[in-house]
């Protein structure tokens, strides 16, 4: 037995022009979440409790793309998804199409613990949430001004933006947007922009 270990992430693919203060903000939040998990582990919480606790913290802070601060759909709304898995016995729970649940990861945990299923989605998941009494908020709670600006950029570039931030400062330069048009990202071997017309 090698002792406890923990890792957290806030997304892969980083805007190369991300301002230094945004980088520091991100590192600060990651350090805070790591320390939260470390103190929980030192208090003998189980692995499944710790991963839920830490992801709830990341969902509540608007910095990364989850919970508050989630990326927006083409309609300007938020549809979140999450999953959780416990190694012993491989128990798991997942949700998709979540629009009112403040912490989707906790709903995923309840699917694992309180339902006979592994995965609930959209209206069924929202009904389960209401029955379980989890904290519900308006969809607006999840929407930040940053992301409204990013959605505008994405629509102008007629593209789907990859899981990373675009600096407000960069908006004038449209760095990533330009990047999206100059060298569009590939998805399934195709320029990512081909997916929008669908």
């Amino acid at each position, binding site marked *: 037995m*090698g002792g406890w270990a*923990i*890792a957290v*992430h806030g997304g892969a693919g980083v805007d190369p022009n991300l301002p230094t203060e945004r980088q520091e903000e991100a590192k600060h939040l*990651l350090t805070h979440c790591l320390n939260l998990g470390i103190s929980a582990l030192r208090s003998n919480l189980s692995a*499944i409790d710790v991963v839920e606790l830490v992801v709830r913290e990341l969902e509540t802070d608007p910095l990364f793309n989850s919970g508050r601060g989630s990326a927006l759909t*083409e309609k300007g709304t938020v549809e979140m998804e999450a999953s959780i898995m416990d*190694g012993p016995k491989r128990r798991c729970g997942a949700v998709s199409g979540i629009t009112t649940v403040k912490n989707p990861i906790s709903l995923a945990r309840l699917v694992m613990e309180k339902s006979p299923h592994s995965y609930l989605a959209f209206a069924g998941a929202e009904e389960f949430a209401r029955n379980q009494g989890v904290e519900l908020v308006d969809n607006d709670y999840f929407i930040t001004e940053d992301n409204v600006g990013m959605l505008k950029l*994405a629509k102008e570039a007629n593209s789907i933006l990859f899981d990373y931030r675009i600096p407000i400062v960069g908006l004038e330069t449209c760095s990533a947007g330009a990047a999206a048009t100059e060298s569009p990202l590939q998805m399934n071997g195709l320029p990512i922009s081909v997916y929008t017309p669908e």
Partner: protein
Amino acid sequence: TVGCVVVDKEGRCAAATSTGGLMNKMTGRIGDSPLIGAGTYACDLCGVSCTGEGEAIIRGTLAREVGAVMEYKGLGLQEAVDYVVKERLDEGKAGLIAVSNNGEVACGFNTNGMFRGIASEDGFMEVAIWE
């Protein structure tokens, strides 16, 4: 997308992932994060959380693949992570974090960076963004 993986003092692994998906996505689009075995996986050997280009992660069943190559090929955690990121993503861009029941912790990505933090009971701690 955000994620967390933990192995606790008893050697029990767990993983969790949560996301808003892609900006400007179609309503109803489901990515890798809620798919057990793709964006998230945990078993008695390891716990894995992935992030990045969902469609590529789904195609590669990335999270389970880490557990599979540890189980069938006997790779260590970092070896398994490196193998999966290199061999299972085709042209897809993604990253992942992982722990093993031996108290190992690892991350791997083929993007230009990944927001990540790692710590272990022996005092190791790192928070980083770039390569």
